Structures are given as structure tokens and as C-alpha cells.
């Protein structure tokens, strides 16, 4: 079994996890980050990275895959609201952000996770993972348990500020700044 697993997510997912979900990250991880067909396409972080990068770079605000991810991120917000880890007012703002914020925040970032640090009890295998695909879901990754790769979007000052230069523990003012910025940069 390879030592490192990889997952590709939009920057917005990282931002939600970091600033609003207590720094706990949710993501599907696969054994390779490789263009060859190592896993089905929907479970291949390289393919997911490419799809997001294409939508971001165009920029294609109307990309179907981005729309699917917006909807999925809304599910995450609603699930936190149900678990009372988000209040209704903040959840509503975040749902609006997931639906309306610019594709600029769908710039892909890649998580590299050292499998030795994730015990089997924290690896959820489902879907194609039960059918030979080398992947699992980690729903509780701490930020000390992964490295962020390919996060070199230095041309976007908000990305630099909210992702690359993020404090380990967000302050009230940084959370407010994230909300205001995400609400201000919407689909053109």
C-alpha cells in the first residue's frame, strides 16, 4: 500500500473547513496522483484537479462540475447546521456563498496525506472503494495531518491571504473578512 494518498478539492472547500468547521477537513483520498487510469475518473484526484483547473483558468462560471461541487458544498453546510456546529444565520450566508461565489474560489488544491498517520478506523471505504478502487473517505483530517500541494495561486490576493497566509487558528476578524470577501466576489 502506498504511503501517501491524495485528494483534490476546490479552495472554497479548504476555506470552509479551515474557517468555519474548526479546521477539520473532509475529503476523498486516492492512492495515486497520476494521469493514468489508476482509479475511476470520479475517484482520480489528478482528473478532478484537471477539471477544476480548467474551469478556474478559463474562467468558466457555468461549468457543470463546478455546479455539482457548489451543490455538494451546500450539503456540507446544511449538515453542519443540522449538527448545530453552525447557526442558521451563518449557514444561510455560507449556502449563498457556495452557490454564488466566483469560480476563482474553485482553484484546485491537493491534499497529500501520510497514511501512517491515519489509522484504519478513520478510513471510510464506500462506493468504488468497495470494488477495487484504491480510495477512502477521511472526514476528520486535522491540518497537521496533510500537506497542501499545488497551492501556488499567488496571483490572487484573496487566495494568498485566506489560504497561503492563513493563521492556524482563525480569529473573529479573519472569519468576518473571509465572509465579506466571498460575498463580494460573485459569479459575473
Amino acid at each position, binding site marked *: 500500500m502506498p504511503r501517501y494518498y491524495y485528494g483534490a478539492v476546490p479552495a472554497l472547500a479548504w476555506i470552509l473547513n479551515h474557517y468555519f468547521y474548526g479546521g477539520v477537513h473532509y475529503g*476523498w483520498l486516492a492512492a495515486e496522483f497520476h494521469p493514468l487510469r489508476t482509479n475511476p*475518473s470520479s*475517484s482520480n484526484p489528478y482528473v478532478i484537479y484537471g477539471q477544476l483547473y480548467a474551469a478556474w483558468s478559463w474562467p468558466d462560471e457555468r461549468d*457543470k462540475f463546478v455546479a455539482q461541487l457548489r451543490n455538494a458544498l451546500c450539503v456540507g*453546510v446544511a449538515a453542519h447546521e443540522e449538527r448545530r456546529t453552525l447557526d442558521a444565520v451563518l449557514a444561510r450566508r455560507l449556502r449563498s456563498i457556495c452557490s454564488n461565489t466566483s469560480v476563482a474560489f474553485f482553484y484546485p488544491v491537493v491534499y497529500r496525506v501520510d497514511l501512517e498517520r491515519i489509522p484504519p478506523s478513520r478510513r471510510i471505504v464506500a462506493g468504488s472503494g468497495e470494488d477495487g478502487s484504491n480510495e477512502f473517505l477521511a472526514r476528520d483530517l486535522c491540518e497537521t495531518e496533510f500537506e497542501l500541494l499545488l497551492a501556488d495561486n499567488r496571483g490572487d490576493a484573496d487566495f494568498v491571504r485566506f489560504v497561503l497566509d492563513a493563521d492556524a487558528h482563525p480569529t473573529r476578524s479573519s472569519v468576518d473578512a473571509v465572509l465579506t470577501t466571498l460575498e463580494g466576489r460573485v*459569479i459575473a
Partner: protein
Amino acid sequence: MNATGPCFSAWEIASLQQPRNRELQDQVVRCLSFLSDLVQRYTGSMFLVMIPEEDLALSYLERALVGLAGRKPFEASIRAGLDAYRRIRALTEEQGLSPHVTELARATADDLLEMWSYATSQPGFRLDECDRRAAG
């Protein structure tokens, strides 16, 4: 829009996109999000599933639907989606995750995504484009 799948009427779409109906819009988006999550697990790919425990996702949807009680056309449209999900789930119990099931689930997921795009006032996503993603 799929002629036989879940969808909003023109009246519902116009109503959802009025600024004074933001609260209704948010309730509808919540319901559609949970519903999409439920259907997505039958498409052959779990990548977009955010609540792996199916019964938990269903309980969240049922609670969210309480907020829509009495909002007749909207509640009925979401319940039509819920019926479609239940048909997919029942079919899976009969035949497993067959190509027929995953095809039906993908078509339903697309219908729900289209409803979601109207509910969020973001119609125009190219939802009819060929799905470039292979099943996984």
C-alpha cells in the same frame, strides 16, 4: 429538463427568484441539497456525497421538509424528488447498482441540479453538456 423527472414549474421558478422570497429559497436549497446527496450515492460515484450515512441524510431531509410544510407547490416538487430517490433505492435493493440504476440516478441527479440552479438564482449552468466524468 427531464420531462418525467422532478422539476419546478415556471411559476415556482419565478417565485423562487424574487428577492422577497429569500427565506423560501434557502429552505428549498437545503431540501434539494440533502436530496441530491441521497441520489448521488447511486450514480456509481461517491465523490460528491457529503453525508455517507444514508439514513442520517434522509432524516435531515425529512426535518428540512418540515420547514416547507404548507408551501404547497414547493413541498410537492421536493416530495416528487423524494419519490424518485425512493424508487432508485428500491430498484437497487432488487438489482444492485446495475447500469440501469446508475443511469437513472445520474438523470435524477441532473434534474435535481437543475432545480438547485433555479433555486439559487443561478440558472445557466451547462447542465445538458455531456458528462465528462466516467462512473467510479
